[in-house]
């Protein structure tokens, strides 16, 4: 990056001291972002060297003996999959109604409420989850313990609802009105237009919204940690047992392992796995969202 400062990147302003200050600030930002990834890679090397692929495929996480990340990876995939499965019909209904039927003043209000909801801290959802959701799941389904994969997935669904709804609504709303008018002149009803014209047109944006929602759900720590039961085991097809996700594992064990040893490296390996998954989801999510808004 530094080598490029001469003319190409910096234009003809490379002699201004103020410009160099801004460039330095930009370099700090660049270092933070790239450094985060690099650190995760470097710190994961010891565990990848000692466990190899067994790190990703191992089923047992016994501190001091062996580190296998499969229970956490499976847990993360199951919980986020469940969250998106639960949230998609709800968010799409809300987005369709808001974009196609609500007058613009109400539309703006719904968007505002979604922005407020998206800002509710994870710890508040955790508190609500611990007090109501775990108890509810336990009583309704007659379980011994309400801290299950299902509870975590349900809570995550509520948490990512505003994100998925707002972004899909943006996608629906950005479909040009000519499409609607052309369909109307063919005699289609409003619902037919919404479902068979607007929805297919905005599909890339909705896919992007879903990918970004999955990314958010996958990284949530506090709320999940409080309701998932924190049990390292590869879950079968039963959603109603305790489990563990990558972030909840990191949240539980970071204090014990702080800073050194193979245990820490194993946690950083988990972090790297999570980082790669979320980064890929975010990259493609933004790609789709931006394509739809053009």
């Amino acid at each position, binding site marked *: 990056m530094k080598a*490029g400062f001469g003319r190409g*990147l910096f*234009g003809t*302003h490379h002699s*201004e001291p103020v*410009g160099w200050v*801004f*460039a330095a*600030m*930009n370099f*700090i*930002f*660049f270092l*933070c*972002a*790239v*450094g*985060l990834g690099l650190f995760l890679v470097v710190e994961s090397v010891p565990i990848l060297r000692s466990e190899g692929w067994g790190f990703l495929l191992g089923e047992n996480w016994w501190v001091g003996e062996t580190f296998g990340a499969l229970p956490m990876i499976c847990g993360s995939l199951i919980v986020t999959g469940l969250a998106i499965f639960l949230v998609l019909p709800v968010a799409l*209904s*809300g987005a369709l*109604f808001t974009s196609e*039927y609500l007058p613009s003043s109400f539309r703006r209000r*719904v968007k505002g*409420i979604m*922005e*407020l909801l998206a*800002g*509710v*801290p*994870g*710890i*508040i959802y955790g*508190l609500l989850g*611990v007090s*109501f959701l775990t108890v509810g799941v336990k009583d309704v389904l007659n379980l011994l313990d309400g801290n299950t994969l299902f509870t975590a997935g349900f809570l995550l669904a509520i948490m990512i*609802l505003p994100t998925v709804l707002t972004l899909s609504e943006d996608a629906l709303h950005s479909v040009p009105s000519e499409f609607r008018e052309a369909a109307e002149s063919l005699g289609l*009803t*409003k*619902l037919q237009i919404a479902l068979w014209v607007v929805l297919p047109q905005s599909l890339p944006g909705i896919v992007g919204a879903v990918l970004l929602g999955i*990314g*958010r759900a996958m*990284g949530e720590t*506090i709320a999940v940690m*409080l309701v998932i039961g924190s049990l390292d085991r590869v879950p079968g097809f039963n959603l109603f047992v305790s489990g563990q996700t990558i*972030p909840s594992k*990191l*949240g539980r064990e*970071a*204090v014990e392992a*702080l*800073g050194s040893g193979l245990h820490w490296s194993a946690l950083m390996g988990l*972090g790297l796995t*999570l*980082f790669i998954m*979320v*980064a890929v*989801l*975010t*990259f493609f999510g*933004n790609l789709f969202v931006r394509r739809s808004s053009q």
Partner: protein
Amino acid sequence: MNAITAEKMVLAFIGCVTFLIVALLFSILAIMFIKGLPAMHGGFLFDESRDFGRAGGIFYQSAGTLILMGVTVLWSLPVALGSVLFQTEYLESGKFKTFLTQLTYILNATPTILFGLVGYLFFGVYLEAGVSWVTGSLILAVMILPTLQVSIREAVEALPEKYREAGMALGLSRPAQIWRIILPQSFYGMVTGVLLGLARAAGETAAIMFTATTFSGIRFPQSFSDPVPTLQTHILVLAQEAANPESIAQAWGAGLVLLGLVFLLTLAAWAFRTRMVMESEL
């Protein structure tokens, strides 16, 4: 006829779903008030917590959260402002700009617990800041960097082209143009970004729970290497004692205060954003 009835039913259904989604915010608020208000006895905000958080107030926890938030913005704002101005005013390579924007997106989506892990190792261990409010605020500063950048960039890019042209016609140098035109005109965007960043920092728990705080026995930090108590971690510890009604009652009280703080900051940010939109339409 049948098709019209079906259409009306679908419409009624998705209307109801939308209503329920909107009601979600109000039910969360209602629950927080119903559960949180009983804890708000006279001195809840100004008393020290006693008996491992089961009694007393949340004074030092609130103070700790405010200290972390404030110092975080102090670290983050210069970097965000400088990097945005560099990208919009100086950088001419389009590809590199796109790359930096992608970095902002990725940083924004990075799970917050990873900021805690990597940040602790870098600031806490390598720079020897330990488990302290300095480490915590530096970590949060990196975390809210994208929030600030996006708001500031929006404000700078929303500036009408004629303002810049007028500046150029007056023969202003680039620094003078930034100082006289771009900074004053994008002031509201900056404030919006700062407020949203503060809200994000206030609501964050995962990144600071093992890097900046300890649960009890501390008040104001006396040095750079002291941890602080915070509302977020206070709630976290109390919520895990779900069997104990006193702990949970205190957790609801602290939760109500935290949620109030976050919503207040978000609403203030909206007020400034509306100002910004109005001014740019002049």
